[in-house]
């Protein structure tokens, strides 16, 4: 038996013994996810145990080196672990902006001290991070951001406001873009800094969305003192990091936004009924089938872009393509779910609708084409970087 076969067998046995039954159920609502942090909330004892057991093996980040809290697995072993988790239907033990967004930045641009300080608590789910990017007057034109970090000797003095900060009210630390040179052209005066959300002068205010939920906050900085050792990379070179991170974010948003589970037509059949195995509503059936065709093709395109990457033939703006299309698909999916649900999908409160889950998810999906760079921005990137069309 090869080493990889042995690894697969042992991993399978370990997962079967250690993944609690309720952690093998599909994630339905946002509340089913585990985000860790200093003030963690666990929906069940199983969720807490699952995180604890996976952390002990370094399997929240299986392919990171062990010295940073990872599992030290090879790429091949990591693939086997993910495949075995999929086979059993295991949930991700930990969702984390630290893992998805900050860690790639620290691996590429951080210094060793920063990696040692921040990566292990991220891996263990002890520190929950948020991202300070957008500002009230800097949305798609992010580089115009105005939050200022003044040089104050051994620290920066940060003043300004961020908006659309995901879960800022629940986060322990923030990675943040700030202006460190007001005189330079806008892209050349930005730096990337890290600070604790409990630092005096930091406050957050949740924003109530059309879904009735508040996953985003306004975040205010009033004379916040940030030690200079918390600068990542070089001063005024933060825009390069921001762009690198945005590309990562696009991929993350996309992989989270992918429709999973049963074909939509079977879900629709529950409310609409079928005749001779054919969905009763012919118009909706056609719309759903066309959606499924695009969704299957998109999954294959994701697989292909991974294979192209491995073969060294990746396209630089593929993340924009993925972000754009997954947003469109997810919105189509939720529109179809609402049509399939009819008036039952319109109930906003109560047990039967699980507090209006379907309607709230539908409304939430409208943000997919706005957050992390609007679809229009993605099309701009494709036009300029892939298609090489001239600027205005």
């Amino acid at each position, binding site marked *: 038996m090869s080493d990889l076969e042995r690894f697969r067998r042992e991993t399978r046995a370990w997962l079967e013994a250690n993944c609690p039954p309720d952690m093998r159920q599909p994630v339905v609502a946002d509340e089913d996810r585990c985000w860790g942090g200093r003030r963690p909330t666990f929906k069940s004892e199983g969720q807490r145990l699952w995180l604890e057991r996976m952390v002990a093996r370094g399997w929240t980040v299986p392919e990171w080196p062990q010295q940073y809290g990872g599992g030290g697995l090879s790429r091949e072993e990591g693939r086997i672990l993910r495949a075995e988790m999929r086979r059993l239907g295991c949930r991700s033990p930990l969702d984390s902006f630290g893992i998805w967004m900050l860690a790639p930045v620290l691996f590429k641009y951080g210094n060793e001290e920063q990696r040692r300080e921040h990566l292990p608590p991220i891996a263990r789910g002890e520190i929950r991070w948020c991202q300070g990017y957008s500002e009230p007057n800097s949305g798609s034109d992010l580089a115009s951001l105005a939050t200022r970090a003044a040089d104050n000797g051994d620290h920066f003095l940060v003043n300004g406001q961020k908006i659309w900060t995901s879960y800022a009210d629940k986060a322990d630390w923030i990675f943040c873009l700030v202006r460190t040179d007001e005189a330079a052209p806008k892209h050349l005066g930005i730096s990337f800094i890290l600070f604790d959300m409990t630092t005096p002068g930091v406050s957050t205010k949740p924003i109530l969305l059309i879904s009735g939920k508040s996953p985003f906050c306004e975040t205010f900085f009033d004379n916040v003192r940030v030690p200079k050792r918390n600068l990542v990379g070089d001063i005024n070179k933060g825009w390069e990091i921001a762009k690198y991170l945005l590309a990562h974010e696009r991929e993350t948003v996309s992989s989270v936004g992918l429709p999973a589970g049963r*074909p939509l*037509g*079977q879900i*629709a*059949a529950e409310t609409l009924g*079928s005749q001779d*195995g*054919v*969905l009763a509503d012919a118009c909706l*059936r*056609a719309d*759903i*089938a*066309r959606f*499924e*065709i*695009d969704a*299957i*093709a*998109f999954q*294959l*395109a994701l*697989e*292909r872009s991974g*294979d*192209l990457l*491995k*073969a060294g*033939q990746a396209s630089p703006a593929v993340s924009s*393509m993925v972000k*754009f*299309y997954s947003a469109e698909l997810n919105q189509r999916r939720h529109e179809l779910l609402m049509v399939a649900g009819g008036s039952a999908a319109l109930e906003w409160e109560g047990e039967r609708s699980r507090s209006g889950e379907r309607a709230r998810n539908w409304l939430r999906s409208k943000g997919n084409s706005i957050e992390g760079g609007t679809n*229009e921005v*993605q*099309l*701009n990137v*494709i*036009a*300029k970087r*892939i*298609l*090489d*069309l*001239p*600027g*205005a």
Partner: protein
Amino acid sequence: MALILTEEQTMVRDSARAFLADKAPVAHLRKLRDSRDRVGFSRELWKAFAAMGFCGILVPEALGGSGLGHVEAGIIMAEIGRNLTPSPFLSTALVGATALLRDGNAARNRELLPKLAAGDLILTLAVDERAKHAPAATALTAERSGNGFKLTGDKCFVVDGHVADLFIVAARSAGAPGEREGVTLFLVDARAQGVAVERTVMVDAHNAARVRFDGVTVDADAVLGEIDRGWPLLEAALDVGRAALAAELAGLGEEAFGRTLSYLKARKQFGRPIGSFQALQHRAARVFVELEITQAAVLKALQTLDADFERAAAFVAVAKARAGTSATLAVQEAVQLHGGIGMTDEFDIGLFMKRARVAQELFGDDGFHADRLARLQNY
């Protein structure tokens, strides 16, 4: 299996690309059309296809073929799509050859397949009977008669039917139209008594035929597959054709888009390239995304036909539907973004729109395959 071409497949693509761009570019189709050529494709080119190993691409080497797979066949179809090359490659080398190969009659194949691989035999599937593809609706009757059958009925949209030597005819030997049971495939000589062929020149200057079978008698050994149970063989031949058409549409869409992109960069209005206008950039970017996604779906269908033929149906349906819609989008945007010149016969871009429409319709359009996927997914 990685969803990219292997090194060997890349070599096949490069050689097919160079060969077709040289021997059969769009001007080749234009010349055949304008001269109202009686055949509608070049027999000389078809012999060159044979010399390249294209005619026998799916035929085993022992029978004079290249012994390659569906991915390689799709690669050639994509290049045919880029150049709008008319040839019996789809009807004969892919659909026809698949029916013979999967029927597996060794004696018959020893006789026919070497000829087919040499470019000396044109063979085509006669399945459609009405304006929309619906193989289960097959009504052309096969009545038992003596030692064989008597075929009566009409077929249409028989690709290359005007020059075919042999027809593979889908007929109703039992049951009622709409049922998959009761369909039988027959190999019928085009010169047989009672066969009447009417050439139909199509909008894309490719050719098909309406074929009338008026009490045509065939022996029992003319049956391909099983009597009354010809459906799996028919679907197999059709699925190879559908995946191949998806590859053609993908190549065609990419070429039309590439030409459009060049035009956006070159054409100036208001003192600047029209490709600098955001309204047009976004339209171009959308087309690009749709075509990119289609590439993956097409390759998956072709790879699955090679690796796990019996499980390819859903991927073939996805590929044909996706390729149909994305190529349609690409050619429609191509004509619009070219402006007035895109409406002229002199300019090539309209030819891409015409071929896309025909290839969409052939062997089931996107609606047909959406319905098929829905059934496969149980709704």
